[in-house]
């Protein structure tokens, strides 16, 4: 497999370049200090206070991350009751919001400073390949529900936008080393340097190794004939920020990551390493018209196949009248998948708009819409002359539109109501269009696992009513949401068997299948507060999913109502001392059916309701150095959370220095 990766970034001029949801180069430190609350671009693409966001958004701050004691991003997200984390093996975690999770979960769009780190190859996120260290994250913005009118395809369950500190305005220097059970060894380093008043650089490095779990080896031996690959991750990133003048800001970023391990995707196991790299250039300019953001980035993934994603985007946020904010944006995306002698490409041209109207001091309306036109094409040879499709079959195109409507009504100084309606679009992953795998089980017989060039997107409708209530006596708030969601044209890969010829060669193929629709109603409530030295929170999430699916007999796993937990409850408390911190958090998940059991890879098996508990104690040895002992899944030595490998009890010792 070709390992070289050459990026050719052409900057289209100083005033020209931006991002998926804006280049994200606002001065968050200054704005957050001014408004005394987090600031986000992830709701509408315009800078907003999080309490003004017309979507259901949770901000996970750096303090939250540190106090969680989590050692990876899924572990941080798992503290939210409406986020589902499926740990299928020691190195694989799939994350979704409000159910519908699965291996290689395609429904959650994940971004790093507005750059997509979701991998379009399979249409999933490998969290271990994200080139960011927990210590350099300013905040994680979690949007629940579709937001494709802003972010484009695949932001259907929600969006996770990871925002790092800024190289120019935030001075973050940190070193961390960690050791733990399952022979875990890891570390990270983040350095920020101010070259001049207008030029800053941040470099971050990370590494982690751990053993595969005994259960991982059992499955791998049965299906791959070898032990599972011990998970290993290496990441590196460099970011430079430059202020040309008071009104023009540049950002450059280069990243690299490598991840090894054994992954499960539906009924298959892989031990292909992931190697990613990316290059990004962005410029943000304050003009007479408004905020102009431009961005170009190229992501390269070498995994099972080779995937390059190049995105060019330009946006303008303007306030033409006192009560009106508008955003217009255009984006061009080229996505290619190289497999053997063939290359599959899709190009997406997008146009989007947002209008925010502050009707009065208490009531605001937001409308956003986006059109995406996708053209698919393929060139080159196939793995076999018997392959059931020709290049001409891939000349497909579709146009999809999405919208987000929101209203925010401040009933009083303490209460706000949010209403939102959305239509989101989930595009098939590249392999769902054009995968090619051929097997010859007997002479005269050839069997393919293939993508389907006519695969159609999933459409998600969402209605939501939210209520936020500030409680000054506990220095906290209550947040509740009632929602309904409909998913149309859900897909299952490799679940449709088609026979293309019988003689002279028997040719059959296993293809993606549209399996039907599914509806969900749900309710969430959370309360958080601070009293003296105690910081605490509790959240409850309820979802009732009803599938209307027609699955083939070979697909024994596609059942969202069975695999999604109905009830999730989380609670946590942290005591903050001058030099000592201690915290514990728990998570209850109701019973589900999950994929596989032991060495049985195929089938749904019951998983009983379970409770997981994590704990952390930390001592600040000096002003700069902290020693932390943390444990996860402390109530049991093993907990069956997914169908296959149980999650094991883990303990970690971390030494962290911040300068």
């Amino acid at each position, binding site marked *: 497999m070709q390992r070289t990766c050459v990026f050719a970034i052409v900057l289209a001029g100083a005033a020209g370049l931006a991002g998926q949801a804006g280049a994200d180069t606002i*001065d968050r430190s*200054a704005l957050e*200090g001014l408004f005394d609350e987090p600031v986000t671009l992830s709701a509408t693409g*315009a800078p907003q206070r999080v*309490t003004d966001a017309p979507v259901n958004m949770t901000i996970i701050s750096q303090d939250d991350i540190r106090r969680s004691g989590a050692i990876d991003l899924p572990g941080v997200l798992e503290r939210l009751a409406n986020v589902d984390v499926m740990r299928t093996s020691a190195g694989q975690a799939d994350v979704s919001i409000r159910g519908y999770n699965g291996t290689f979960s395609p429904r959650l769009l994940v971004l790093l400073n507005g750059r997509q780190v979701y991998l379009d190859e399979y249409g999933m996120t490998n969290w271990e390949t994200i080139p960011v260290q927990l210590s350099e994250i300013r905040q994680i913005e979690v949007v629940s529900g579709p937001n494709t009118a802003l972010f484009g395809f695949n932001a259907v369950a929600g969006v996770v936008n990871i925002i790092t500190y800024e190289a120019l305005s935030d001075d973050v220097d940190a070193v961390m080393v960690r050791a733990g059970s399952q022979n875990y060894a890891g570390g990270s380093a983040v350095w920020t340097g101010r070259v001049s008043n207008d030029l800053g650089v941040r470099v971050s490095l990370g590494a982690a190794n751990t053993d595969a779990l005994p259960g991982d080896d059992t499955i791998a031996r049965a299906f791959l004939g070898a032990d599972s690959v011990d998970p290993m991750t290496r990441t590196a990133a460099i970011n430079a920020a430059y202020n040309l003048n008071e009104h023009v800001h540049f950002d450059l970023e280069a990243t690299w990551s490598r991840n090894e391990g054994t992954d499960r995707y539906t009924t298959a196991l892989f031990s292909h390493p992931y190697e990613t790299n990316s290059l990004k250039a962005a410029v943000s300019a304050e*003009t007479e018209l408004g*905020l102009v953001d431009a961005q170009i980035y190229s992501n390269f993934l070498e995994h099972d196949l080779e995937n390059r994603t190049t995105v060019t985007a330009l946006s303008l*946020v303007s306030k033409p009248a006192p009560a009106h904010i508008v955003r217009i944006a255009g984006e061009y995306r080229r996505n290619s998948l190289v497999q053997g002698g063939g290359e599959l490409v899709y190009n997406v041209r997008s146009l989007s708009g947002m209008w925010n109207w*502050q009707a009065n001091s208490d009531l605001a309306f937001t409308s956003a819409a986006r059109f995406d036109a996708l053209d698919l094409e393929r060139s080159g040879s196939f793995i076999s002359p018997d392959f059931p499709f020709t290049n001409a079959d891939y000349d497909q195109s579709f146009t999809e539109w999405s919208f987000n409507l929101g209203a925010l009504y401040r009933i009083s100084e303490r209460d706000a109501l949010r209403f939102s309606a959305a239509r989101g679009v989930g595009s098939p992953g590249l392999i769902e269009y054009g995968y090619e795998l051929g097997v010859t089980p007997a002479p005269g017989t050839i069997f393919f696992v293939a993508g389907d060039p006519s695969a159609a997107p999933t459409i998600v409708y969402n209605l939501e009513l939210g209520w936020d209530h*500030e409680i000054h006596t506990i220095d906290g708030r209550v947040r509740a949401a009632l929602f309904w969601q409909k998913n149309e044209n859900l897909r299952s890969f490799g679940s449709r068997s088609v026979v293309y010829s019988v003689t002279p060669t028997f040719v059959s193929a296993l293809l993606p299948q549209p399996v039907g629709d599914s509806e969900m109603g749900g309710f969430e409530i959370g309360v958080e507060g601070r009293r003296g030295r105690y910081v605490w929170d509790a959240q409850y999430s309820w979802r009732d999913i009803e599938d209307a699916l027609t699955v083939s007999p070979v697909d024994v796993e596609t059942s969202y109502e069975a695999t999604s937990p109905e009830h999730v409850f989380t609670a946590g408390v942290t005591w903050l001392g001058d030099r000592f911190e201690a915290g514990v958090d728990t998570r209850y998940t109701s019973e589900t059916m999950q994929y596989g059991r032991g060495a049985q890879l195929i089938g749904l098996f019951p998983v009983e309701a379970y409770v997981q508990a994590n704990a952390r104690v930390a001592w600040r040895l000096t002003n700069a150095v902290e020693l932390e002992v943390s444990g996860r899944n402390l109530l049991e030595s093993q907990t069956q959370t997914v169908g296959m490998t149980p999650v094991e009890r883990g303990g970690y010792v971390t030494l962290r220095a911040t300068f």
Partner: protein
Amino acid sequence: MRKRLAALFAASILLTAQAQAATTARDLQVIARAVGFIDGLPRGAVDVAIVDGPGADALFAALGRGVTAGGVTLNPRRVSVGALASSGVRVIIVPEGQTASHAAISAAAARLGAVTLSTDMGCVRSGRCVVGVSASPRVEIVVSRAAARLSRVSFSQAFRVMIREI
């Protein structure tokens, strides 16, 4: 009856004084941070005119030895309304309770090209002050476009998008 009226009068004076002292240290921190978003004003130490008159003493008391926030330090000095136009400052803080002077302050600010900031939202609503600030219970910032235009003051675009303009 006279005693009752006297008591009522005294109470009203007290309430007025409390209202005039409404500008808090937290308000002033928000004012300092807001100054950081004004185009053309360098961060660091900024000379600020506190308009002398009702409320000025309370505002000076809230300022203490000065307020630093968001990279901006407010260096205050007391300036009478009549002396404002020749003060040379770019930032004017208008204490509460000076409604009668708003027109004169606005005219002086326009001549100076200075921004006027106040916790008196009435001053902003009438188009005499550029920026109105309220820090509690939730930070609220209101900008009068008319007053800003008159004083030739502009703000960063991100700031404009996030505050309320009238």
